C-alpha cells in the first residue's frame, strides 16, 4: 500500500458536516443485496421481451416476416421500426451532447437500414424469457447487404460507403453538395502556427491513435414499461437521468411527457453511457400491443454490440517551443469515430485539447466521422481523454527534445485564471498550477525507481457543467428532514445532499434523509452527468434548505409574537432575541410539531438552472514496470492529484478519482473494440474485452487540492470526469520512461510493447 493515511485528516475548515465522511443513507441496502437495480424490478403480470439484432454491419432491410413468431404459443406482441411514429428532425440536448430524435428512434428499432452489427430490428414479448428467445428464431429478415466501413480515415476516403444520404458536413463553407460520413467539423484557434513552428527551437510532429472503448458499467441496460389504453404509462429503469428517459421516450413516441411516469431504480454504473435510451420506447410499444407490463433487458453481449462506446480517434499533433521551453505553437487535427449517428460532440474534443497551456499560435480541428459501429456515446469527459492522450504525449516528447523536466515544462506554460481558453473565453478560478505544484511536492515525484521501471506525468481538464435541478426539502412533524432530488445517485450523491442540507440547518447528519424522487414527484432535473450533480443539485439543496430555515424562523417568530428579525437560527434551533421570550429557543421538532396550527406543513422547493460552474484540472503520476521478456506492463505506483473545489464527502471524491484513473489505465493498456474483417465485433464479452481487475492495479493515491469555486455556497467544483483524462498519457509517458520507446497507439498491449522493445522483430 502506498497511499498516506494522512489523507483521512483532510477536512475543510469552518464546516460542521462538509468534508466529513459519514456512511451513505442507501448503504445498508446496497451491502445486503436489498437495493433494486434495473434488472431486479418485476411488475405483476409482466411479459419478457427479447430483441432480434442485425447480423450485418450495413444492410438494407428488404422484408421482415414475423408470422411464425406471432403464432408461437406464449408470444403476446411483436414490434418493428414501423411501430414507432414517423418524426420530424429535432436536435435534443439531454446533458451529454445533442442527438437528433429521429436518430434516437432509429437506433431503438431500425427502419429500412441497419447501420451496425447488433442494430435492433425486431422485438417480441412473451410469457417467459425462453419463449421470447425461441420466437426470435422464428423471425425471417431479408437483408440486402451493403458495403461497410469501420475506420475513420477509410470512411472519409473517396468512394467509401455513405451511411446517411441526408448528412452534409456541418461547419464547412461552402455547404457541401454531396452527403458524406464527415458529420461535423469544428475548427478553432488563431495566430500564425506555421510561422511560429518554423522558428521554434524544437518541434514534435506525430500521429496518435485510439480504438473505441466501452463505458463498461457492470449493470446491463434493462427496463420495465407499462402503457395503458388511456395513454398513461409507467417506466421503471435505471439511468443517469429519469427526466431524460421521460423526454426522449415521449419524443420518440410522440406523446405528452406527463403521461409517462419514470421511477428511477438504483443504477449500476453509467459513466455517460446511460444518458440516453435504447430499450424504453420498444418496451412501451410491446406493452401497448400486449396490454401488459413488459421487461426488456440486455445481455452483456448486447451491451457491447449495441450501446456506447466512446469514440476511437486518429490525432495528428504538431507542437513547438523555443529554447527556454515556452510553447510557441500547437496544431491538433483529429478524427473521432461517431459510429452510426451524428453525436454533435466534436466541439468537446476541440475545447479539451490544448486550452490548459498558454500558446500564442494555435489551430485545433476536429471532425466527427460516421462509420458502421454502434453510435458513439458519452464516456466520462466525453471527447477529452483521446485528444489529451495525444497532446500530453507530445508535450512529453517535446520536453525530451528540449532536455527540460516534463513537469517544469508544463508548469512554465500552464494557463491560469484570466488566460484565454481555445475558444478565447478567459479561464475562471482554476487550480491547474496548484495541481502541478502539488505534484512536484509529492513524495511520489521524487521517489527512486527500480529496474525496468519508468515514471510518467500528465495533466488534463474537463469543463464540467451546471444546469437545471429541482430539490424539495421538507420537514416531518417530528422535525426530521427529507431531501428529495431528481438526480440519480451513482456514487454517493444522497450522502452529499444530506451533508449540505445538514450543514445549512446545522442539525445532525442522521436527521436528514435524502431520496431520489420519480418524475411525477419532483420537478425536472438534468442527468447525473457532466460532473454537475454535487454542484448544481447541491446548489438547489442548499437553496431549498435555506428557505426551510427561513420558514422555521418565521413560524417561531409568529408563535412568540415577535417580528422575523427578532429571531435567529442557531445550532439547529430558532432563538428569540428580544421581548419577553428572549433567550428561549425552539427546535425544528417543536416548530414542525405545531406547524398544522401555524400555517401548514413546512417545505421548500428550489428549481434552478445552476450557473457559475468551473472546470476541473488533474495531474496524474504513474510508475510502470515493463517485463522485457513479455512486454507486459505493470502499474506499480499511481498518484492522482486534482483540484476538487471543496470536497463535500471526501471518500466519494477520492473514489471518483480512483475509479476514473482505473478506467483510464484500462483504456491505456488493455481495452479496445476488436472487429473482424466481416465487420462484426470479435470481443463482445468481459473475457476478451478486458477491463482492469483488482490484481492489475496498486492502491491509487489521491491528493485533493482545494481551490474553492466562488460561485457555489460551499465552493464545489465537479470532480467525476476529470480523472479519466490524464491517465492515458501518464501511462504512455511512464512506459517511455521505462523502455525509452514511445508508444503512440492505444491500447499498449504486451505485443505492442514487446515489438517496441525488439524493433528488429
Amino acid at each position, binding site marked *: 500500500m502506498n497511499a498516506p493515511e494522512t489523507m483521512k485528516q483532510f477536512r475543510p475548515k469552518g464546516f460542521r458536516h462538509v468534508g466529513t465522511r459519514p456512511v451513505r443513507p442507501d448503504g445498508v441496502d446496497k451491502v445486503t443485496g436489498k437495493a433494486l437495480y434495473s434488472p431486479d424490478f418485476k411488475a405483476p403480470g409482466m411479459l419478457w421481451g427479447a430483441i432480434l439484432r442485425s447480423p450485418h454491419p450495413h444492410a438494407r432491410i428488404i422484408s421482415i416476416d414475423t408470422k411464425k413468431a406471432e403464432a408461437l404459443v406464449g408470444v403476446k406482441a411483436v414490434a418493428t421500426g414501423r411501430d414507432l411514429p414517423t418524426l420530424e428532425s429535432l436536435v435534443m440536448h439531454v446533458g451529454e451532447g445533442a442527438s437528433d430524435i429521429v436518430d434516437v428512434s432509429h437506433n431503438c428499432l431500425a427502419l429500412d437500414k441497419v447501420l451496425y452489427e447488433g442494430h435492433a430490428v425486431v422485438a417480441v414479448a412473451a410469457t417467459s424469457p425462453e419463449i421470447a428467445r425461441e420466437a426470435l428464431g422464428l423471425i425471417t429478415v431479408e437483408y440486402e447487404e451493403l458495403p461497410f466501413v469501420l475506420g475513420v480515415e477509410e470512411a472519409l476516403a473517396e468512394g467509401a460507403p455513405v451511411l446517411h444520404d441526408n448528412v452534409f458536413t456541418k461547419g464547412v463553407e461552402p455547404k457541401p453538395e454531396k452527403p458524406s460520413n464527415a458529420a461535423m467539423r*469544428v475548427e478553432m484557434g488563431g495566430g500564425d502556427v506555421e510561422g511560429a513552428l518554423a522558428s521554434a527551437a524544437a518541434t514534435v510532429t506525430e500521429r496518435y491513435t485510439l480504438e473505441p472503448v466501452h463505458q463498461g458499467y457492470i449493470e446491463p441496460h434493462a427496463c420495465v414499461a407499462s402503457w395503458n389504453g388511456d395513454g398513461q404509462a409507467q417506466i421503471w429503469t435505471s439511468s443517469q437521468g429519469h427526466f431524460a428517459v421521460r423526454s426522449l421516450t415521449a419524443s420518440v413516441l410522440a406523446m405528452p411527457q406527463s403521461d409517462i411516469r419514470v421511477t428511477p431504480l438504483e443504477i449500476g454504473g453509467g459513466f455517460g453511457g446511460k444518458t440516453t435510451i435504447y430499450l424504453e420506447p420498444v418496451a412501451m410499444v410491446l406493452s401497448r400491443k400486449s396490454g401488459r407490463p413488459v421487461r426488456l433487458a440486455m445481455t452483456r453481449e448486447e451491451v457491447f454490440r449495441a450501446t456506447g462506446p466512446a469514440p476511437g480517434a486518429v490525432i495528428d499533433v504538431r507542437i513547438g517551443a523555443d529554447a527556454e521551453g515556452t510553447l510557441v505553437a500547437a496544431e491538433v487535427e483529429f478524427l473521432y469515430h461517431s459510429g452510426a449517428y451524428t453525436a454533435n460532440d466534436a466541439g*468537446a474534443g476541440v475545447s479539451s485539447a490544448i486550452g490548459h497551456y498558454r500558446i500564442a499560435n494555435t489551430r485545433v480541428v476536429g471532425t466527427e466521422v460516421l462509420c458502421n459501429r454502434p453510435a458513439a456515446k458519452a464516456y466520462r469527459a*466525453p471527447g477529452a481523454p483521446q485528444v489529451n492522450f495525444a497532446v500530453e504525449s507530445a508535450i512529453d516528447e517535446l520536453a525530451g527534445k528540449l532536455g527540460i523536466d516534463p513537469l517544469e515544462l508544463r508548469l512554465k506554460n500552464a494557463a491560469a485564471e484570466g488566460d484565454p481558453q481555445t475558444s478565447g*473565453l478567459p479561464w475562471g478560478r482554476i487550480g491547474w498550477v496548484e495541481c502541478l505544484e502539488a505534484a512536484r511536492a509529492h513524495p511520489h515525484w521524487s521517489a527512486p525507481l527500480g529496474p525496468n521501471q519508468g515514471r510518467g506525468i500528465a495533466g488534463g481538464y474537463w469543463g464540467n457543467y451546471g444546469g437545471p435541478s429541482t430539490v424539495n426539502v421538507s420537514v416531518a412533524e417530528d422535525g426530521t428532514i427529507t431531501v428529495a432530488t431528481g438526480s440519480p445517485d451513482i456514487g454517493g450523491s444522497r450522502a452529499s445532499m444530506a451533508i449540505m442540507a445538514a450543514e445549512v440547518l446545522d442539525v445532525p447528519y442522521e436527521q436528514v434523509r435524502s431520496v431520489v424522487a420519480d418524475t411525477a414527484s419532483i420537478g425536472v432535473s438534468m442527468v447525473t452527468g*457532466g460532473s454537475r450533480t454535487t454542484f448544481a443539485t447541491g446548489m438547489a439543496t442548499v437553496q431549498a434548505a435555506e428557505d426551510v430555515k427561513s420558514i422555521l424562523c418565521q413560524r417561531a417568530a409568529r408563535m412568540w409574537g415577535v417580528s422575523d428579525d427578532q429571531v435567529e437560527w442557531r445550532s439547529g434551533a430558532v432563538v428569540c432575541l428580544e421581548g419577553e421570550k428572549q433567550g428561549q429557543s425552539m427546535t425544528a421538532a417543536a416548530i414542525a410539531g405545531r406547524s398544522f396550527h401555524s400555517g401548514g406543513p413546512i417545505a421548500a422547493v428550489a428549481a434552478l438552472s445552476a450557473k457559475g460552474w468551473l472546470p476541473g484540472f488533474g495531474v496524474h503520476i504513474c510508475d510502470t514496470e515493463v517485463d522485457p521478456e513479455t512486454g507486459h506492463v505493470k502499474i506499480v505506483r499511481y498518484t492522482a492529484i486534482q483540484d476538487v473545489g471543496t470536497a463535500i464527502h471526501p471518500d466519494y471524491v477520492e473514489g471518483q478519482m480512483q475509479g476514473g484513473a482505473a478506467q483510464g489505465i484500462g483504456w491505456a493498456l488493455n481495452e479496445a473494440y476488436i472487429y473482424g474483417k466481416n465487420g462484426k465485433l470479435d470481443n463482445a464479452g468481459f473475457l476478451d474485452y478486458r477491463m482492469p481487475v483488482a490484481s492489475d492495479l496498486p492502491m491509487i493515491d489521491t491528493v485533493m487540492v482545494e481551490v474553492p469555486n466562488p460561485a457555489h455556497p460551499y465552493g464545489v467544483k465537479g470532480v467525476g470526469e476529470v480523472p479519466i483524462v490524464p491517465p492515458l498519457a501518464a501511462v504512455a509517458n511512464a512506459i517511455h520512461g521505462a523502455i525509452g520507446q514511445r508508444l503512440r497507439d492505444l491500447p499498449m498491449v504486451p505485443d505492442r510493447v514487446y515489438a517496441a522493445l525488439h524493433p528488429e522483430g
Partner: protein
Amino acid sequence: MVRIVVMPPFDKEFFGEFINDGRLDLAPHNLFDLVEKLEALAPGFAAIAPARVHFAVDGVLETDWTRELAQAQEVIVLPRVGGG
C-alpha cells in the same frame, strides 16, 4: 450595438455569407432576442440553439437567456459541451 462573435462550427454552418471573421454587430435586448435575430439571418439556428449552443456574455458563460444585454460589449456564440 453588441459585438456578436460566432465560433465554429456555427459560423460556417449558418452565417458564412453574413459575417466576416465570425463577427457581426446587432442590438439584441437579451439572449432570447439574439436567437431571434440570428434566426432571421439564418433560418434553422433557433431550432438547434437550445441543444447545441452556449452563449458567453463578456467572457462569462450565461445559461439564462433573459439576461439583459444593454450594457454588454460582446456575446460569443460557441458550441455547448456536454458531459458524461
